[in-house]
C-alpha cells in the first residue's frame, strides 16, 4: 500500500477540478477588484490627488492579489499539464497581450508618482486603465473558448498538441466579445465596490454610480450569454470512460449536441445554484452600491463573480477545454491531469500552505483596514504611490 493510493485517482481529479475552480475564483475575486479599480481610474478620479488615492487604495495589496494568477499558472502546470501545454501555446497572441498588461501594471504602479510632471503621470494613468480593462476583457474572451471549443488536435504518436493559428481570431467572435464584456462589467462592479469601501467623497460617489450600472450590465449580459449557450454545440463523451485511466485524451469518442452544455443542469439540478448566485450577486451589488452599503456591495460582487466563474466550470464538466476542430482531442477532467502521485503530492502541499496564505493575507488586510488616508498622501508621504 503506497500512501498516495489512499485517495483514488478519479477522486483526486475531481478534487483538483474543484481546486482549479477555487484558484480561478480566488484570482477573479482578489485581483479582480484591482483590475476593476485600475480600469475605473480616469473615470472616477479627476484630480491628481484623487487618482493617487485610488492607486493607494490598491497599492499595498495588488502584488499579493496578483499571485493568485501566478499560482493559477503554476497549479495548472502541475495538476493539469495538458491544459497548460495546450491553452498557453494555443492562445499564444492573446497570452502575449495579457503578459503585456501584466508587465506594464507593476511598472505603472511604481513609476507613476516618482515624477511630478502631469504629462508623465497622465501617461501612466492611461497605462493603468488600459492594462486593467484589457486584462479583464481578455480573461472573459478566453473563457468563451471553453464554451465554444478551440481549434486543436493531438498527434497520436507523440501526444503533441497543434493549434490552428486562427484560434486567436475566434476570441473576436461575437460570443467571445460578449464573454469579454461580462468579465469587464463584473470586475468594474467589483472594483467600484472596493473604491466605495476604501475611499470617501466624490471618488466614492462616482464609483458607486458607475459600479451599480456595471453590476446591472454584468447581470444582464450574463443572462444573454446563458441564452446564447443554449444554441451553442455542447460536447458529450459517448464512449465508456475510465475516470482513473492514465491521461491520454485520444481514448474517447465525443459528440456535439446543440444546447448540450445545459444537460448537466438536468442531470444534477443543484448545479443551477451557480448561475443563480451569479445573477443575484450582481443584482445585490447594484442595489448595495446604490444604497451606499459598500461592504455588502463588495461581498455581493464577490459572490456574483464566484457564481459566474462556477457556471462555466459546471456547464462544461467533465470538459475543461473542448476542441471544436477534433472533438475527441478535447481535454477533460479524466484525461488531462498529471499522474496520481503528483496530484496527491500537490494536494498535500496545498492543504499545508493554503490555510497559511489565507491567514496571513487576512492579517494584512486587517492591518490595512479603514479608509485610505488621503491627507497623508497629500502631505507627500514618500511611501505612497
Amino acid at each position, binding site marked *: 500500500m503506497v500512501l498516495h493510493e489512499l485517495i483514488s485517482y478519479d477522486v483526486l481529479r475531481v478534487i483538483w477540478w474543484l481546486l482549479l475552480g477555487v484558484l480561478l475564483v480566488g484570482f477573479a475575486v482578489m485581483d479582480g477588484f484591482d483590475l476593476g479599480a485600475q480600469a475605473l481610474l480616469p473615470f472616477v478620479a479627476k484630480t491628481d490627488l484623487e487618482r493617487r488615492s485610488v492607486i493607494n487604495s490598491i*497599492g*499595498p495589496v495588488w*502584488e*499579493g492579489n*496578483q*499571485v493568485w*494568477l*501566478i*499560482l493559477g*499558472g*503554476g497549479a495548472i*502546470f*502541475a*495538476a493539469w*499539464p495538458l491544459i*497548460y*501545454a495546450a491553452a*498557453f*501555446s494555443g492562445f*499564444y497572441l492573446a*497570452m*502575449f497581450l495579457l*503578459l*503585456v498588461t501584466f*508587465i*506594464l501594471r*507593476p*511598472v505603472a*504602479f*511604481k*513609476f507613476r508618482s*516618482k*515624477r511630478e510632471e502631469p504629462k508623465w503621470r497622465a501617461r501612466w494613468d492611461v497605462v493603468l486603465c488600459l492594462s486593467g480593462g484589457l486584462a479583464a476583457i481578455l480573461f472573459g474572451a478566453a473563457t468563451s473558448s471553453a464554451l465554444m471549443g478551440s481549434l486543436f488536435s493531438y498527434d497520436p504518436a507523440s*501526444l*503533441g*498538441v*497543434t*493549434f490552428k*493559428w486562427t484560434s486567436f481570431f475566434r476570441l473576436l467572435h461575437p460570443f467571445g466579445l460578449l464573454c469579454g464584456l461580462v468579465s469587464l462589467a463584473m470586475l468594474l462592479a467589483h472594483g467600484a465596490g472596493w473604491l466605495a469601501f476604501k475611499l470617501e467623497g466624490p471618488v466614492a460617489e462616482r464609483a458607486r454610480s458607475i459600479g451599480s450600472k456595471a453590476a446591472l450590465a454584468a447581470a444582464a449580459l450574463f443572462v444573454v450569454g446563458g441564452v446564447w449557450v443554449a444554441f451553442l454545440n455542447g460536447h458529450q463523451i459517448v464512449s465508456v470512460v475510465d475516470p482513473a485511466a*492514465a*491521461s*491520454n485524451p485520444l481514448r474517447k469518442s465525443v459528440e456535439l449536441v446543440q444546447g448540450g452544455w445545459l444537460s448537466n443542469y438536468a442531470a444534477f439540478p443543484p448545479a443551477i445554484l451557480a448561475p443563480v448566485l451569479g445573477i443575484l450577486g450582481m443584482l445585490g451589488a447594484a442595489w448595495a452600491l446604490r444604497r451606499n452599503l459598500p461592504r455588502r456591495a463588495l461581498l455581493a460582487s464577490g459572490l456574483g463573480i464566484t457564481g459566474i466563474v462556477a457556471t462555466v466550470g459546471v456547464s462544461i464538466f467533465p470538459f475543461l477545454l473542448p476542441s471544436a476542430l477534433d472533438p475527441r482531442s478535447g481535454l477533460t477532467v479524466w484525461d488531462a491531469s*498529471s*499522474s496520481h*502521485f*503528483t496530484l496527491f*503530492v*500537490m494536494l498535500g*502541499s*496545498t492543504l499545508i*500552505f493554503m490555510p497559511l*496564505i489565507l491567514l*496571513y493575507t487576512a492579517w*494584512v488586510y486587517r*492591518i*490595512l483596514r479603514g479608509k485610505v488616508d488621503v491627507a*497623508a498622501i497629500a502631505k507627500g*508621504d*514618500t*511611501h505612497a504611490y
Partner: protein
Amino acid sequence: MELDVVALSRLQFAATALYHFLFVPLTLGLSILLAVMETVYVMTGRDVWRRMVVFWGTLFGINFAMGVATGIVMEFQFGMNWSYYSHYVGDIFGAPLALEGLMAFFLEATFVGLFFFGWDKLSRVGHLAVTWLMAIGTNFSALWILIANGWMQFPVGSEFNPETMRMEMVDFFAVLMNPVAQAKFVHTVSAGYVTASVFVLGVSAWYLLKGRSPALAKRSMTIAASFGLCSALSVVVLGDESGYLSGEHQKMKLAAIEAMWETEPAPAAFTLVGFPDPEARETHYAIHIPYVMGLIGTRSLTTEIPGIADLVQNAEGHIRKGALAYGALQEIRAAGSSAAIPPAAREAFEENGPWLGYGLLLKRYVDDPTQATPEQITKAAWDTVPHVPTLFWAFRIMVGIGLFLILLTGGFFWLSARRRLEKRRWPLQLAVLAIPLPWIAVEMGWIVAEVGRQPWIIEGVLPTAVAVSNLGAATVLTTLLGFTLIYTVLFLVEIKLMLKAIRKGPQHPLDGGPGHGPEPLRDAAPGAAPAFTPAE
C-alpha cells in the same frame, strides 16, 4: 543558426530570462540587507538605521516591480513556447513552480505591500517581522525555481510512461533533495547577495566621494562589505560544488567549459585562457595550469576527466540504443492495450528506455529515428557538444569577476574595520566602477548553466529541438520583437528612476517621513559617528 521556431523560441527565452535576471539578484540580496539593517534599527533604536531601510527600500521597490513584471513572463512562457516540454515533464516540473507560488510568492508579495505601507500601522517589531517575512519569501522563490532547474540538469525521481508519453514523478523527495539543485540554490542566492552588496557598496562610495550622508553611507558600506565578503566566498565554494557535480552528472558541460577536446591523463590541467576552435576541435594558444582541473572536476589526482571526443563516442552508443527504444515505444503504443504489447518490444524498451531521449536527438535529421544512417548518428552525437567558445569564455569571465569581487569586498571589509573608509579616494572610485560587474557575472552564470546543457532541455531526456510549441516562426518573431521593445523602454525608464532616486539620496534626518515619530539625531555630525556605538 537559422532562425526557425526553435532558434527564435530559444532566443526569446534567453532574452526574457537574462532580462528577468537583471532584477532578481538585487531583490534577493537587498531584501536580506534591508532586514539586517532594520534589525539593527530595532535593536539600537538609532534613527540612521531606519533612514537606511527607507532609502535602500525605495531602490528595492523600483527594482522589485521590474522583477515581478518580468517574472510572470517566465512562468507563462513554458506553456506558450515550450508546449511539448510542458506536456512531457509538467508532471514533475510543474510541482516546484506551483510550490513556488504557494510557499514563496504569496509570502513576499503579500508582505512587500506592508513593508512600504505599514510603517505607521505597525509596531517596530511588527514591521521588522514583515521585512523578514518578505526577505524569506523572496529567497524561498529562488529555492523552488532552482529545484525546478536542478531537475532539468539532473532529472532524478522520475520515469517515462509510454501510455501518457511523458515523464512522471515517482519520488518527490528525490526531486526536492536533488544535489544539483541544492548546490545551485546556495550558489545563486549567494551571487544575489554579492550583487546587492556591491550595489550598496558602490552607491554608498559615491555618496562618500560627494561628501553626502556620510553616516548613512559608511554604515551601509560596513554591512555590505561584511555580507558581501561572506557571500562571495560562498559563491565560489558552491560554484566549485556545482563544478564537481557536473563532473558527475554533466560531463559534457564540464568538458566544454574546459574546451577539453581529448581525454587527458589524470590529473588534468586547467586551461587558463586560450581560443577554442569548434571547427578544428582544438584550443589555440592555450595556457595550462597543471593538476587544477582534475582536482576541481574529480577531487582526486587519479581519476580521469573524459574529453569531448570520448564523450561524443559514448553518445553515439546511447543514440543507437535510443533509436531502439524509440522503435519499441512505437510498437508498444500501437498495441493499444497492455496485453497486446509484443513481449520483444516490451523487453527492448525495458533495456533501452533510459536512452529514449538520445533517440529523439535524431529527429532533427530523420522522422523515424530507427531508420537513421550511421552518418546521421555521428552527426547527432556531435550535436551533444554545446558551443565550446561561448562556455569557455562565459565561465572565465564569471570566475574572474567572482574572484575580483572577493578582493573588493574583502578590501572594504578591512577598510571599514580599520575605520579608513574615507582615507583614500581611489578605493571609493573603484567601488563605484565595480557596480556593473556582479550583473555581468550572474548573466554569464546563466549562460554557463543553460547553454552548457544544450542540446538538451532536460539533460539526456528531452532535446530542446523537439520541445517547442507548434507555432509559426513569424508569430514567435512578433512576440520576440514585442518583448524586446517593451523591455528596452522599461529598462531605460528604470535606470533613469534609479539614478534619480540615488541622486536625490536619503531623506535628511530633519525631514521626518514614514517611521515612528521624531527621534534624537545621533549622527548629525557628518563623519564623526563611528560605525557602531552601543545605544544610550
